[in-house]
């Protein structure tokens, strides 16, 4: 599948998502309209004997059921009408209908005294699920106007004994509640939209990785075929060597593609909100990261941990903190020689967690330390052993993550002696 086809599919998927959401909301509204309808018809019929008012209500609720049915079948149509704007228009219809129905219910249930005022939350939430904040606040404003109209109309028509002062409080209070609901809904839908955007971005990056890897996969398969072909042995040593070089360069390019996109993926996450803050056990996280990095660099024997057994917690985002730690600890192994210790310790005071990662490698000059946390600052030449090339984003990403957690990251290093990275995080 090409990238163009993928993007086209993504747009179709967006329309499909809107249609599915609409359909889902429609199903919920069946119950809502039915419950309100039955209550609206039966309660006045039981408590009052005004035949004309009951028949009016039956007509009103029947009209709503009919309109709902029409909207439901329109949204269910899979083919034919396929524009996104169409589904948006249907949704606006739903919101307006809900506001009118809520207001009518308020009116028949006794105006300002009615607790059914909570029904206005439904159009506001519907707007939050399907639209941006402007529509959500507009729905809240319309709800407020409709509510006030229903209450005033009830009291004018029924010559209610409630005084103006008694009316003012619900008329002021409930519209404020509508706007509070709108603010909460907007906040929640923004968070959810950002999560969706992050997912789409990750998927797009995976798609790009696939597209970039694709020629490399074909080259790798062709080299594999050539090397196993009977005529391969007839090639001169020079030709065989060149084929080997093509193979190495190809796998080198695959590594670069993977690293580049992995770094982009990591960096993109820095712009997503720290939505779900959780209590992260830093002691466990450091232990897991250290073990994984030590094993990965075949240096489990060099790892020295000085970490408390008891949980040491901080409020944050587990995945991001793990990414930050992995980058720092991996560097300690990359820039020090096998056989030298990498010491990782945690110190505590009542408010802070102080994490230190010490290696006994080459260390860094003052000039290197100045650019250490900048993007693309790669010190590959100072590494020990063979490791694939990196993009020089690791510590830049780590520092940003730590700072997003209201923490600090410091480095002290001396050429020939090694490097000490200190991370301070708040306990919580």
């Amino acid at each position, binding site marked *: 599948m090409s990238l163009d086809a993928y993007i086209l599919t993504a747009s179709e998927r967006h329309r499909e998502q809107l249609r599915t959401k609409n359909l889902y909301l429609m199903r919920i509204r069946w119950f809502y309209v039915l419950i309100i309808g039955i209550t609206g018809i039966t309660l006045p019929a039981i408590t009052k004997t005004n035949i004309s008012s009951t028949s009016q209500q039956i007509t009103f609720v029947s009209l709503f059921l009919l309109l709902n049915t029409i909207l439901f079948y329109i949204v269910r149509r899979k083919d034919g009408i396929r524009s996104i704007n169409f589904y948006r228009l249907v949704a606006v219809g739903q919101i307006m209908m809900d506001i009118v129905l809520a207001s009518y219910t308020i009116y028949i249930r006794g105006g300002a005294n009615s607790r059914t005022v909570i029904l206005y939350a439904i159009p506001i939430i519907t707007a939050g699920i399907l639209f941006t904040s402007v529509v959500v606040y507009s729905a809240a404003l319309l709800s407020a106007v409709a509510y006030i109209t229903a209450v005033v109309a009830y009291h004018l028509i029924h010559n209610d004994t409630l005084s103006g002062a008694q009316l003012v409080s619900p008329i002021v209070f409930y519209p404020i509640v509508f706007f509070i609901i709108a603010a909460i809904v907007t906040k929640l839908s923004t968070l959810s939209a950002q999560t969706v955007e992050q997912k789409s971005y*990750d998927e797009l990056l*995976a*798609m790009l990785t*696939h597209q970039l*890897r694709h020629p490399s*996969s074909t080259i*790798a*398969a062709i080299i594999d075929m050539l090397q196993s072909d009977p005529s391969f042995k007839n090639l001169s040593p020079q030709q065989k060597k060149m084929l080997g070089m093509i193979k190495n360069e190809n796998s080198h390019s695959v590594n670069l593609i993977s690293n580049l996109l992995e770094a982009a993926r990591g960096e993109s996450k820095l712009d997503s909100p720290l939505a779900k803050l959780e209590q992260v056990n830093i002691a466990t996280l450091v232990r897991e990261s250290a073990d994984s990095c030590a094993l990965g660099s075949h240096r489990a024997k060099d790892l020295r941990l000085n970490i408390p057994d008891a949980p040491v917690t901080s409020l944050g985002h587990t995945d991001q903190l793990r990414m930050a730690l992995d980058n720092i600890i991996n560097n300690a192994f990359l820039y020090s020689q096998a056989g030298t210790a990498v010491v990782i310790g945690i110190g505590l005071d009542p408010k802070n967690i102080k994490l230190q990662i010490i290696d006994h490698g080459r260390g860094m000059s003052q000039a290197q330390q100045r650019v250490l946390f900048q993007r693309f600052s790669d010190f590959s030449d100072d590494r020990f052993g063979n490791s694939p090339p990196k993009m020089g984003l690791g510590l830049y990403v780590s520092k940003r993550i730590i700072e997003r957690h209201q923490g600090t990251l410091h480095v002290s290093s001396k050429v020939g002696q090694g490097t000490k990275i200190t991370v301070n995080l708040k306990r919580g």
Partner: protein
Amino acid sequence: MHKLLLIEDYPVISVMYAKVLKENGFSVDTVQDGEQALEKVKQTNYDIILLDMLLPKVNGMEFLKKFKDHGKTKVVALSDFDYKETVKQAFELGIDKFWLKVDNTPHVLVKKLEVLLKEPSERHDNLLTQ
């Protein structure tokens, strides 16, 4: 002789893998999209299916959803599209392995398939014990 279905839309890759697999004793059928694959699996009981995830018409994931009852057939996703959600969902839909094409050149793949075919199917055993 193990019966194998190779679902791959890119002809160059398909031809090379099919050639090496045939040379190593597999009976190979090749198709270019998920729709053709669904037709094939109705006609033949394959020992193994190699499935590219990004395919025209019916993609890999849709194929897996429709090809639920694959009994002892082992399904290997062979793709360079390793979006973590896709990989996770593919395993939930019953694939045995997810291998990157770039790491699994034809001869590497043959060796890994020979090992895989000797392994008891974990998925099948799980179904029996449930």
